[in-house]
């Protein structure tokens, strides 16, 4: 359990620190020497071709995947096999999945209140009030009594975002949140994410939506074959990509 001393006022408030992180799936080297720091309030977008390890990277941050080498420190707690550390980190890190992963046998309201009741031990009434508040923030408060199967894809993903928000996390991770949506529903989800970003939450987002990156991101990271190839501010990144691999990737996705 590493506890670094509180940073001085002039030092950046680093929420996530990944140093020399390597991960293997069996013999396959999927993350290669990742060095990454994210400050509080930063919005980071990670892009790259499929198989580059970007999903694996953020899944390592809440221990859905284990890294074999290097260190990950989240909110001043080191991520090891220590179950207490993992629990503490998962309370502060929320995740929104590509496939939504809502619990189909529970209503929308129950989906949102389950974790606050069982993990943060919040009384039911208070949890429901919080849930209704966040449902309002994602603009679908009237769906509280419905089951996920009765909602459209865009609505389900917004419920998933609200579910993570109900835990009041410090960091939100997004794993390709709009890739499974029909085109007309992508905008409603992106709008919610932009509003969240503007309020100051720390975000790491794996996505192909470059418009979102331009609007909201402080930093864009390009990954290829397990390594961070390039990282820059959005304007610079899109206008002057420095590496050849970045240029190739951008030409492919920005073609249309």
């Amino acid at each position, binding site marked *: 359990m590493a506890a670094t001393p509180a940073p001085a006022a002039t030092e950046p408030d680093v929420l996530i620190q990944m140093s020399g992180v390597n991960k293997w799936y069996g013999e396959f080297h999927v993350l290669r020497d990742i060095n990454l720091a994210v400050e509080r309030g930063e919005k980071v977008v990670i892009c790259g071709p499929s198989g580059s390890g970007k999903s694996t990277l953020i899944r390592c941050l809440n*221990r859905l995947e284990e890294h074999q080498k290097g260190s990950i420190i989240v909110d001043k707690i080191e991520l090891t096999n220590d179950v207490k550390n993992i629990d503490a980190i*998962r309370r502060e890190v*929320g995740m929104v999945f590509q496939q939504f*992963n809502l*619990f189909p*046998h529970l209503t929308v309201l129950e989906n949102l209140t*389950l*974790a606050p009741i069982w993990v943060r031990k919040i009384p039911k009434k208070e949890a429901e009030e919080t849930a209704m508040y966040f449902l309002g923030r994602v603009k679908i408060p009237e769906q509280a009594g419905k089951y996920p199967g*009765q909602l459209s894809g865009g609505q389900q993903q917004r419920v998933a975002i609200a579910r993570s928000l109900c835990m009041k996390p410090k960091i939100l991770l997004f794993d390709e949140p709009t890739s499974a949506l029909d085109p007309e529903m992508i905008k409603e989800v992106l709008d919610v994410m932009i509003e969240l970003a503007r309020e100051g939450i720390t975000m790491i987002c794996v996505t192909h939506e470059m418009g979102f990156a331009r609007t909201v991101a402080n930093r864009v990271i390009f990954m290829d074959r397990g390594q961070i190839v390039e990282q820059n501010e959005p304007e610079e990144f899109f206008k002057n990509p420095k590496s050849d691999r970045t240029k190739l990737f951008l030409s492919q996705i920005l073609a249309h």
Partner: protein
Amino acid sequence: MTMDVAAAGTAVRRGSAFNDPRLRSIFYQAVLLLVVIGIGWFLVSNLIHNREVRGIATGYGFLNREAGFAIAETPISYTPSDPYSRAFLVGLVNTLKVSILGIILATLLGVVVGVSRLSSNWLVAKLAAGYVDLVRNIPLTVQLLLWAGLIRVSAPAPRQAANPVPGVFISNRGIQVPSIENNPIFLWVVIAALVALVIGWGIARWARQRQAATGQPFHSFWVGLALFIGLPLVVWLAGGAPAAFEIPELKGFNFQGGWTLSPEFAAMLLGLTVYTASFIAEIVRGGILAVSHGQTEAARALGLHSGVTLRRIILPQALRMIIPPMTSQYLNITKNSSLAVVIGYPELVSIGNTIGNQTGQVVEAISIFMAVYLFISLSISIGMNVYNRRMSLRER
């Protein structure tokens, strides 16, 4: 008649009655019904004629006649001077006895094996898989004959009976287990257990409300379990802790006291349990696997512990997938109990067969036991349909 000439000279084809699909369908159905009725009439008239020739009676009146044969296992009282209807009843009770016990044991064993197949311990998982693959690919008939042989032929005589657990004896006369003495204390013990159940349910309700109000969870399950064991225990001790069991004792050549499971019944029970448990194990495993991995990931990402994840997320969804095929396995146990006729356990089909042969009225005898099985199957089917409709996930 089939064409209508409209004013401007163009013809509109109306279509003939012959091609109207509704009329055609009525025609086909009428033909089919006629054929079926015709065949039925043909068969029944032959039956009546053949019976007349052989002097066999028709109708179910034989049920009141004296049976005249003994039955080896009679859970309800029966003597050869009882009527055939009573003999059928004995068969039915034997069928239900082995089926219900088989269902309970097979479910327990099947769940354990099914969960073991998903174990992180390689040995346990492979053993469970090996058991399932082995048992599912050997016919139940052979397995029953093996079990029957093991107990009837290979087990030792009562004098040298195997005693694996105190009070339980395995010999070639069957399996003896202790039975409960008829002491009034046990009535109070049972009442205490029921009271504990009610109190436990009340505690659970209180705990749920408290958690809703203050957020503090409560281990109502463990408290309830402690009550369920503790309260009857206290009552039993207070009543002087009477020796609870009638232990089978060897007197002369056989055991007296306790419950006896005859070799045939024991073989049926073991065979049905081991065989069906392998299918139940696959159903349980399939149900748990069918819950998508994303559910577990979302739960873990929210910080939910594995206990809560299992109880609230995985099991409700898995049970939806498990229960329909599970009831069909329960039905299979009931139907497979009819194989008892191969090893001589006197259940419904075996007794019905005897009755049919004795009276010559095989059609009636067969119709009786087929009707019983049909009744059981259809009730379970209807129950399953009702359950499915209630539990199906609501979709748009």
